[in-house]
C-alpha cells in the first residue's frame, strides 16, 4: 500500500518499504507492525496505491440459488451453511436474502400494495409466487473443474435438502429476464454492477441508509438480529428489506432502510429508527461495520469498552499523524484535537 500522510510524506507499507522491492503486495504483513489496517475506514492518510490479488478465471462457474418457504427457516439455513462455509465448500461471498430484497430489485411497492405501513403477509405471499422466490433465498456458486463442482454440489444439495421445502435452481432454471438472478450471477463471477440499487426504487424517490451489524454464522444470532430489526422496522412503518452476506466466520447483515427523500416526516422517522437500531443492537452485543456520516459518532460510541480505550487510541494516532486535523475530521467518529467535544 502507498499512503500520503497529512504532512505530505509518502509512505510505502509492508514489503514495499524496501527500495527495489521484488515482493510488494505479495506478503501483506512485512517487517514489524502491520499498519495497512490503520488506513482502512480511517482518516489517518490518503491511500494512493493498493495491491489487488486477481484470480485467474476458474475452469468452471456454476452459480446456484436455493429458495426456502418459511420465514423461520433462517435458523436452519444458517446452521446448515456454517460448516460448509468454514470448510470452504462454499467459497466467495454467499448470500442469504430475504424475499423483499429480491422483489424490490424488479417490482415496486405500488405494483402490489398502496396502503400505509409495512406490506401484509398475504401480499408477500403473492409476490413470492409471482417472482418464484422464497421467504429466504440463498445464493452461492461452484467454481473449478467440472468433476470437482459435481462432487461439491452433491454435498451442498444434500445438506440444504434437509430443510423442508428447499428448492434448487441453476442458471437454466431461472428466466433470462429475472433481474435478481441475472445480477447475482454476474456478481458471483466478479462482474460488478449496480442492479442491487434497484431496491431503492421500491418506493418513489426512495433513498436509503444501510444498517449493517455483523452477526455470527449461527441460527440463533441470525434470527435474533432479524427479529430485532424487523419488529422495530415494522413498528416504525417501514418494510424490512435485508440480507446476510456470508463471509468465513461472520455475516454482514444489511438492512436497507428505504425512505422517501422528499418526505421530511418519513426522513425523521427513518433517522429515529436507525438510532434505535444502533442502540438495541449494541445492547445485544452486535456492532456495525460501516455507516452513514450522520451516525459515525453514535456508532463509534458503542465501541466503548474500558472507558472508550479504542477511540482514545485512535485519537492519539490522529493527533500524531494529522495534528492539524486536515483529513476528514470526524470520519468514523475520530475527531482532531481542536474539534473534539467533551474530551481532551
Amino acid at each position, binding site marked *: 500500500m502507498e499512503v500520503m500522510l497529512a504532512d505530505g510524506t509518502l509512505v510505502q507499507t509492508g514489503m514495499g518499504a524496501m527500495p527495489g522491492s521484488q515482493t510488494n503486495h505479495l506478503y501483506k504483513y512485512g517487517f514489524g507492525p502491520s499498519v495497512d489496517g490503520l488506513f482502512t475506514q480511517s482518516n489517518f492518510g490518503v491511500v494512493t496505491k493498493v495491491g489487488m490479488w486477481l484470480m485467474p478465471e476458474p475452469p468452471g462457474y456454476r452459480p446456484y440459488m436455493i429458495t426456502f418457504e418459511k420465514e423461520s427457516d433462517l435458523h436452519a439455513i444458517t446452521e446448515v451453511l456454517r460448516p460448509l462455509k468454514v470448510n470452504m465448500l462454499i467459497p466467495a461471498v454467499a448470500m442469504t436474502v430475504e424475499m423483499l430484497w429480491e422483489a424490490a430489485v424488479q417490482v415496486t411497492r405500488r405494483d402490489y400494495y398502496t396502503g400505509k405501513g409495512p406490506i401484509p403477509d398475504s401480499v408477500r405471499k403473492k409476490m413470492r409466487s409471482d417472482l418464484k422466490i422464497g421467504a429466504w433465498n440463498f445464493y452461492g456458486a461452484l467454481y473449478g473443474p467440472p468433476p470437482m463442482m459435481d462432487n461439491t454440489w452433491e454435498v451442498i444439495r444434500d445438506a440444504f435438502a434437509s430443510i423442508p421445502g428447499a428448492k434448487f435452481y441453476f442458471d437454466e432454471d431461472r428466466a433470462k429476464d429475472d433481474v435478481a438472478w441475472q445480477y447475482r450471477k454476474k456478481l458471483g463471477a466478479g462482474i460488478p454492477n449496480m442492479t442491487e*440499487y434497484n431496491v431503492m426504487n421500491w418506493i418513489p424517490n426512495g433513498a436509503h441508509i444501510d444498517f449493517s451489524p455483523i452477526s455470527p454464522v449461527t441460527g440463533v444470532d441470525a434470527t435474533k438480529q432479524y427479529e430485532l430489526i424487523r419488529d422495530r422496522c415494522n413498528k416504525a412503518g417501514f418494510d424490512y428489506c435485508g440480507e446476510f452476506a456470508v463471509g468465513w466466520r461472520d455475516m454482514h447483515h444489511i438492512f436497507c432502510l428505504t425512505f422517501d427523500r422528499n418526505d421530511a416526516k418519513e426522513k425523521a422517522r427513518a433517522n429515529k429508527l436507525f438510532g434505535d437500531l444502533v442502540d438495541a443492537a449494541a445492547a445485544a452485543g452486535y456492532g456495525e461495520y460501516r455507516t452513514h456520516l450522520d451516525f459515525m459518532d453514535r456508532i463509534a460510541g458503542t465501541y466503548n469498552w474500558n472507558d472508550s480505550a479504542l477511540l482514545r487510541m485512535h485519537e492519539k494516532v490522529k493527533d500524531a499523524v494529522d495534528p492539524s486535523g486536515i483529513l476528514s475530521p470526524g470520519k468514523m467518529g475520530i475527531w482532531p484535537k481542536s474539534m473534539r467535544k467533551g474530551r481532551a
Partner: protein
Amino acid sequence: MKARLMKEILIGRRTLACRLVSAMLALGIVGAGGTANAADAAAAATPAKVTLSPETLAKGSELFVKNCIMCHDRGMEHPGTAALTYLYGKDKGALEDRDNLTPDFVRFFVRHGRGLMPGFRTGELNDAELKVLAEYLSAGPHPAVPAK
C-alpha cells in the same frame, strides 16, 4: 453553486424555464406554489435540435460511460433507468434514448441528485465536464452501440 444554478434555471430562456419547471412539478420538486401555470406548461416546446462537434460528441459519450452508464444504461437492471421508467414510461427510461433533455435540466439533476441518485460534486465531475455531458445528453437520442 446551488443558488447560481437555480437562478440560471429560473431566469433562463423562457421556453426552457417553462419546460424545466413543468418537469420539476411533475417530479414534485417544486411545490404547489411554483411559478409555472398550465398554459406555460402546455406551451413548452421541444428545444431546437443542436448539432454537436465530433469532439464534443466523443467527449460527452466518454463522460456518460464513466459517470452515468452504470445506473443509466438501457435495461431495467440499471437502477437509474428503472427509476425513470417508473416515472415517465418505458421509452423514457434510458437517458441516451431521450429527445427532450435540456442542458440546464441535466445540470440540475447531476448536481442535486434525486431519490437514490447522489448529487455529483465538482471534485467528481467539474463544471466544464458537466457542460459537455449536458450538451451530449441534450443532443439525444443517441443510437445504441451494438455489443461486441
